[in-house]
């Protein structure tokens, strides 16, 4: 029996090794199959343009094939009988083991058979009988792998038409994704009631999804883009012809923009704050700047003197003291506080240069703050001056927000039981005057007229209801105006997409029409004869409003008034060079005739509007850092001095 157990043990060991060998061979067989398939696919890929996803698929299939083949073989148990037969065959045992395994214990020959089998098994070394060498499949696998490795370095052949098609497809998908992202950002800010804008965004969204799906070719995509653009342009044209929208547009185009009633409410606290500062509201900003420059110059002189080894002599000290007192007088003349300067003079007398410098800096800081506050208040005052004083003026100037607020005040007063006859009469008079300018605002005029009639009949509450309807109608118009902005932005996005797809340019290379308001009917950004096609309304640069850099810190771009970064210096390449000319009498100078634009005829652009537009563009350019820093002051000064 022990012989039998020994035989079975060795046969189990043989079966395990056979299974291992089967897994080994199966793996190499799968490797061969996969290598052939991979190399073939690679050859096909180098010649035929198909998606590289197929290569990934084949690679995964290859790996999976090896894994599954090994797994399948590994999970297949090998019976002892098979192991016995294999060993009989391999070691030429003449079926001794198989016979020993089959014979039963009760058989008369079992004992001698088992003994004989054990004796034969003892001398067998499985690792020599069944070594794990590379099977023949490995030999055939090598050429395929080599071919595949070589092919990796061979560039794929792709026709120019195919490459262009691929590039077009990418551009189409990028355009679609940009549209979808743009719509998402626009919808965050646009109110749902602005149907004009919402409809254009819906159209853009639909187009964007269609493009991003990647199922359109270039022609089809262009056709869709042009079609969508025409639809939105048609819709925008209808809105632009609305007289109410024109009024609102006029107000928006002014340098002060849409006057917000809330800004007027900030005026009082600001005025009171400034009134506390000794007549600073009347200070001339130019004089304040000049004073600031003088302070800076004095501080530099002081710095140099204190750092010199000789120190500050009496003459220098006297000169500095004289300059300080002169500056203090100038500050007093401007109505500014000169406390810091007084302290500076004291510290100069006490020969405390560090304190003196500190005082000078403090004086500069105070001066800059005053300057900023002065300019802010001037802006507010300008807004206040531009705001209409009554409902008629506000409607006339297109200041819908102010008009709405005015109506709300009227409604509040009419609903209050304590409103006296004089007030009601003033409201009635105001409504009468506002009736004519309200005619451009759709249903607003109708409701105002109704309110007038009701108020005239003493129906206060009914009149207040009518005024509420009028306010709602006005608000709706304001929202539609905001929607127009989105509509224009959508057109800008479509224009950019059209340029990208039509000219086969990348999205970043293609630029939409210039941003900002402009006049004229010729293409191109700018004013006058360089006006934008399509009338007054220009396309807003898509994505310009959607950029939120509030969280971005850029210390190198801090306002000049808060940190001292020294004088801006031009790079060498920008420093203009002057070459002394050599004029010889009688010799002609080189000349080149350049054809210019024909500027004959009467200008179609109002000068004031052109000026305002130019100033607005300049302000935008300065705010967006599109002007080199060294030229910013010059540009700012130039445009602010235009009258």
């Amino acid at each position: 029996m022990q012989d039998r157990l020994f035989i079975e043990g060795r046969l189990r060991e043989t079966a395990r090794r056979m299974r291992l060998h089967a897994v080994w061979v199966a793996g190499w067989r799968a490797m061969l199959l996969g290598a052939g398939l991979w190399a073939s696919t690679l050859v096909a890929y180098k010649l035929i343009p198909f998606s590289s996803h197929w290569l990934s698929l084949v690679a995964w299939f290859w790996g999976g094939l090896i894994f599954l083949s090994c797994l399948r073989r590994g999970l297949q148990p090998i019976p002892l009988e098979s192991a016995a037969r294999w060993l009989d065959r391999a070691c030429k045992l003449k079926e001794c083991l198989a016979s020993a395994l089959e014979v039963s214990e009760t058989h008369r020959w079992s004992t001698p058979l088992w003994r004989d089998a054990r004796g034969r098994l003892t001398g067998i070394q499985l690792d020599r009988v069944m070594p794990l060498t590379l099977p023949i499949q490995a030999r055939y696998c090598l050429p395929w792998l080599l071919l595949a490795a070589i092919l990796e370095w061979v560039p794929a052949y792709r026709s120019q038409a195919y490459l262009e098609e691929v590039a077009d497809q990418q551009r189409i998908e990028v355009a679609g994704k940009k549209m979808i992202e743009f719509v998402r950002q626009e919808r965050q800010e646009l109110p749902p009631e602005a149907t004009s804008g919402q409809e254009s965004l819906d159209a853009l969204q639909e187009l964007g999804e269609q493009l991003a799906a990647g199922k359109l070719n270039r022609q089809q995509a262009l056709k869709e883009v042009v079609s969508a653009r025409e639809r939105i342009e048609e819709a925008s044209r209808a809105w632009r012809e609305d007289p109410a929208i024109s009024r609102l547009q006029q107000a928006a185009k002014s340098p002060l923009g849409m006057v917000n009633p809330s800004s007027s409410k900030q005026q009082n606290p600001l005025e009171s704050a400034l009134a506390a500062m000794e007549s600073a509201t009347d200070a001339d900003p130019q004089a304040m700047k000049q004073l600031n420059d003088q302070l800076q110059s004095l501080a530099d002189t002081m710095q140099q003197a204190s750092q010199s080894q000789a120190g500050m002599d009496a003459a220098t000290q006297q000169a500095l003291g004289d300059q300080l007192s002169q500056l203090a007088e100038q500050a007093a003349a401007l109505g500014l506080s000169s406390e810091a300067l007084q302290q500076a003079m004291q510290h100069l007398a006490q020969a405390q240069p560090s304190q003196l410098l500190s005082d000078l800096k403090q004086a500069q800081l105070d001066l800059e703050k005053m300057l900023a506050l002065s300019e802010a208040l001037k802006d507010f005052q300008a807004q206040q001056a531009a705001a209409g004083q009554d409902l008629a003026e506000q409607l006339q100037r297109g200041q819908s927000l102010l008009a709405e607020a005015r109506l709300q005040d009227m409604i509040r007063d009419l609903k209050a039981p304590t409103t006296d006859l004089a007030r009601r009469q003033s409201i009635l008079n105001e409504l009468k005057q506002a009736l004519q300018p309200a005619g451009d605002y759709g249903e607003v005029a109708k409701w105002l007229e109704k309110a007038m009639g009701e108020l005239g009949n003493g129906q206060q509450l009914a009149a207040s209801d009518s005024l509420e309807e009028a306010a709602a109608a006005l608000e709706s118009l304001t929202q539609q105006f905001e929607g127009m902005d989105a509509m224009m932005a959508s057109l800008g996005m479509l224009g950019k997409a059209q340029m990208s797809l039509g000219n086969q340019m990348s999205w970043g290379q293609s630029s939409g029409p210039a941003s900002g308001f402009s006049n004229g009917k010729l293409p191109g950004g700018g004013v006058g004869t360089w006006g934008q096609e399509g009338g007054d309304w220009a396309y807003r640069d898509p994505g310009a409003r959607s950029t939120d850099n509030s969280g971005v810190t850029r210390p190198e771009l801090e306002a000049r008034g808060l940190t001292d970064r020294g004088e801006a210096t031009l790079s060498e390449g920008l420093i203009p060079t002057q070459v002394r000319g050599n004029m010889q009498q009688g010799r002609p100078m080189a000349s080149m005739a350049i054809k210019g634009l024909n500027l004959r005829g009467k200008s179609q652009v109002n000068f004031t509007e052109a000026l305002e537009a130019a100033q607005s563009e300049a302000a935008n350019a300065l705010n967006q850092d599109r002007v080199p820093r060294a030229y910013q002051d010059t540009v700012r000064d130039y445009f602010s001095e235009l009258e």
Partner: protein
Amino acid sequence: MSVEQSIEAFRQDYQQLKAEIGKVIVGHEAIIDGTLSAIFAGGHVLLEGVPGLGKTLLVRTLSQALSLSFSRVQFTPDLMPADIVGTNLVVERSDGSKAFEFQHGPIFAHLILADEINRATPKTQSAMLEAMQERMVTAGGATRPLDQPFFVLATQNPIDQEGTYPLPEAQLDRFFFKLVVTYPTKEELKEVIRRTTEGFESSVAPILDGPTIQRYQELVRQVPVAEHVRDYAVRLILATHPDTENGAPISQQYLRFGSSPRGAQTLIVAAKVRALTDGRFNVSFEDIEACLLPALRHRLILNFEAEAEGMTTDQVLENILANTPREAVRAQAAPQATGS
């Protein structure tokens, strides 16, 4: 005696037997092995060969070595069945009375040499073949068993076709082996000449006797056969059957009838003998393959096409052997062995 001892004794006796026979018979090792295999398997042998090759001498020597009674029957066309089995004769007793007494024929011996069996009439052949199958004779109204062990070694001359009565297939099938006696080689012929023309005399000592032979016959039957070896034998037999799904293509082409189940029995038993003579405890594929031709060559019936093309059953069997794999379903991805 244990099995190992029995086997060892058998092997030694077998070797001794061969050696003893070899003192008289030069060469013909395959014939001697085949004959001894048949004897230990309990079967009969049909020897086919031209005259003068020592067939009769072989049988005689065999009988001496096996201590078995021997009788030779020369078959002629006029031989009657009674000449073989015996007949009742009237004999006079001592008291003067006459009675019938059965006179045993030459068949009542252990070892019978039936010379040129194909020259006798079918009737006489059938009397002989009945005895071979039944191991008894019916004569004179009585059935008389033959002595055991009982062997018939029949001969037939392949070139003398005139005046012969070829054995029918059914009766050919009763022979265990058909051994073809070939001409001796040059060296063997020289030895034959030396022994027979130079007054060389050799005596054959008895090695075995009847009971020992019977015991060995029982031992042979006990040799185990593995299932896949048995399956191999069966597939070889089935491959000889034409017009069946298991028939080999060559069988379809050249055979009219294939081997009977008796052929399969013969194959297995003969393989067992061979395993024992090799000192092994089990039958192997080589044993089966070695016994295939002598066991089946006389059991296959060639068709007209085979006869027309001169195809022999040996050629058919060799083809079947070459095209029949040893194992029907090998283990998947069985490793290539490098040998131990």
